């Protein structure tokens, strides 16, 4: 180990920063859209100038669910790969830039059609609602761009392995590659429906579309998508946080095993988003429910590993008693505090997920605002707070600056603001959802229905939470802009933890990609072959496109 700060190469840093720049721009715009939604839904406010609630909702979902996440993740992973396996080759870096521009052009294109009201189809774009072809083409470019960047990471990783035969690859590189393999395999589904079904249909080349097939291909992608968001947060938790607090990683091999389990089980599970649909037999739904429960296991492992990391560190500092170690943690360090709060929120978030996926229990919550509350805990709190926490060292590391004490204090406040805002918003969403309030709906009393009137206090609480969260967005933008352009020059560490125990032989076996990818394919074939054949063979007449907004 060298004591000098190991730096991401300046040119690689530029590539990573370009991604982060787009990500935080998306956060600013998408966050504002979110504020407007909560205000409309309270029933106390109407959008001016005839702007549609659903245009704003589409903007919010696409910018935050797809753009913020994908750009941040790819930027972060480029930095992580460069930091742990060495400067990218000129070829890999150029490929990375090609990916970046494809994604950026695609984003701009989709955003144009959304904002001009030609694609108010929400970020799930379920056919037969038919958006302008440009919206789908833009999305396809984003996906293709992400593949190009993925290949840049794969070739870089392959080169490292060739030069270091018989060695275990650095944890962050291994995890980044796992996440990109997951992404590549799952985006094949959404690419298939967009390129082969929706683009020809929206261009008028085909008249009709198989609605259920399109939805099934979307959800083949839609669930691993959320793991694509979550895994980079887990990377920070496993590989960075132990170093930030001054401790060691609990177990390198178990972290790798968890990632392989995510790779295997996060894809063949899309039916748990389609539990209440016609055209899919309950047997196959249940098969995928069982597979969904398998993907809970690596999160149970992660929970243990995190507590163990914290406890081991606390005890090494002389903590005693059952929970004395909690007091030894660096609560005033935002690089720790923000991801830690994210971890805490993952407890209700993950629990909600188990409930959602529980076969017929889904009838209680499906398409209610409970679900919106659920993913605002998972992605919009756990993942996003971890990304914020990572930004506090990643951005100054990449820009050659240091975070000041004042900014650190602001970041602590930001985290608290986020936690409070989300407790109000997501908490009331969960309760209103149990009472039946639907998601993705503008304010309505459904003809003064007694049930709908019960939801209004919760909807007002959501607006209060949404407003607090918007303050949180302003704070994070202030911090990020400071770190990128105004913070004092200096060197910031890209923290990477050491494992508590030496590498185990098992870690090497976990890099047997042929085996894992073979298993992934096998599981997908088991879960999907029969139902997809059913969907195609027993298909009803297809649907024409509708523009109902």
């Amino acid at each position, binding site marked *: 180990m060298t004591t000098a700060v190991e730096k991401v190469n300046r040119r690689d840093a530029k590539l990573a920063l370009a991604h982060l720049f787009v990500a935080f721009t998306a956060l600013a715009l998408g966050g504002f859209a979110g504020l407007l939604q909560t205000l409309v839904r309270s029933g106390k406010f109407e959008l001016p100038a005839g702007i549609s609630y659903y245009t704003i909702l589409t903007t919010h979902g696409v910018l935050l669910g797809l753009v913020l996440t994908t750009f941040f993740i790819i930027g972060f992973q480029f930095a992580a790969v460069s930091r742990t396996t060495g400067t990218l080759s000129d070829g890999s870096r150029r490929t990375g830039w090609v990916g970046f521009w494809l994604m950026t052009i695609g984003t701009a294109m989709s955003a144009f059609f959304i904002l001009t009201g030609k694609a108010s189809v929400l970020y799930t774009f379920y056919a037969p609602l038919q958006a302008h072809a440009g919206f789908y083409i833009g999305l396809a470019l984003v996906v293709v761009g992400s593949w190009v960047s993925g290949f840049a990471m794969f070739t870089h990783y392959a080169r490292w392995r060739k030069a270091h035969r018989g060695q275990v690859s650095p944890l962050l590189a291994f995890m980044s590659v796992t996440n990109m393999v997951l992404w590549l395999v799952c985006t094949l589904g959404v690419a298939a429906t967009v390129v082969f079904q929706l683009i020809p249909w929206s261009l008028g080349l085909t008249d009709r579309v198989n609605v259920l097939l399109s939805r099934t291909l979307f959800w083949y992608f839609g669930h691993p998508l959320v793991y694509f968001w979550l895994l980079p947060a887990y990377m920070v938790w496993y590989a960075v946080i132990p170093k930030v607090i001054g401790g060691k990683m609990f177990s390198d091999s178990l972290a790798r095993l968890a990632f392989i389990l995510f790779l295997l089980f996060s894809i063949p599970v899309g039916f748990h988003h389609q539990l209440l649909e016609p055209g899919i037999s309950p047997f196959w739904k249940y098969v995928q429910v069982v597979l969904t429960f398998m993907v809970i296991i690596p999160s149970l492992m992660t*929970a243990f590993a995190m507590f*163990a990391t914290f406890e081991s560190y*606390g005890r090494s500092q002389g903590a005693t008693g*059952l*929970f004395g170690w909690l007091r030894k943690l660096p609560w005033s360090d935002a690089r720790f505090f923000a991801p830690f709060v994210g971890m805490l929120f993952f407890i209700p978030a993950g629990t909600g997920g*188990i*409930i959602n996926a*529980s076969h017929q229990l889904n009838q209680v919550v499906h398409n209610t605002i409970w679900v919106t509350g659920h993913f605002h805990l998972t992605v919009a709190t756990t993942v996003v707070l971890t990304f914020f926490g990572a930004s506090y060292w990643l951005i100054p590391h990449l820009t050659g600056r240091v975070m000041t004490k004042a900014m650190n204090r602001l970041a602590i406040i930001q985290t608290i603001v986020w936690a409070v805002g989300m407790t109000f918003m997501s908490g009331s969403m969960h309760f209103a959802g149990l009472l039946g309030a639907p998601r993705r709906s503008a304010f309505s009393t459904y003809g003064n229905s007694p049930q709908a009137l019960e939801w209004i206090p919760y909807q007002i609480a959501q607006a209060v939470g949404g407003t607090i969260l918007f303050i949180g967005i302003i704070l994070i933008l202030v911090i990020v802009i400071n770190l990128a352009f105004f913070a004092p020059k200096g060197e910031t560490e890209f923290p990477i933890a050491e494992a508590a125990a030496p590498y185990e032989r098992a870690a090497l076996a976990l890099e047997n990609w042929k085996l894992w990818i073979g298993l992934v394919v096998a599981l997908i074939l088991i879960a999907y072959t029969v139902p997809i054949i059913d969907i195609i063979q027993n298909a009803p007449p297809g649907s024409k496109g509708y523009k109902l907004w």
Partner: protein
Amino acid sequence: MAKPTTAVRQTKKDEEPALKGTLASVFLLGFFIIFAWVSVYFLFLHRL
């Protein structure tokens, strides 16, 4: 899984690090999951 051999692992005090607090924490988490799941399950049954 086989017990690890003591020769390979060398920690200062004993073979296994002290993780009582961790065990307690994950079990609290587990009880929360059970409580929430059972609550919604009963809501489902109540509405049958």
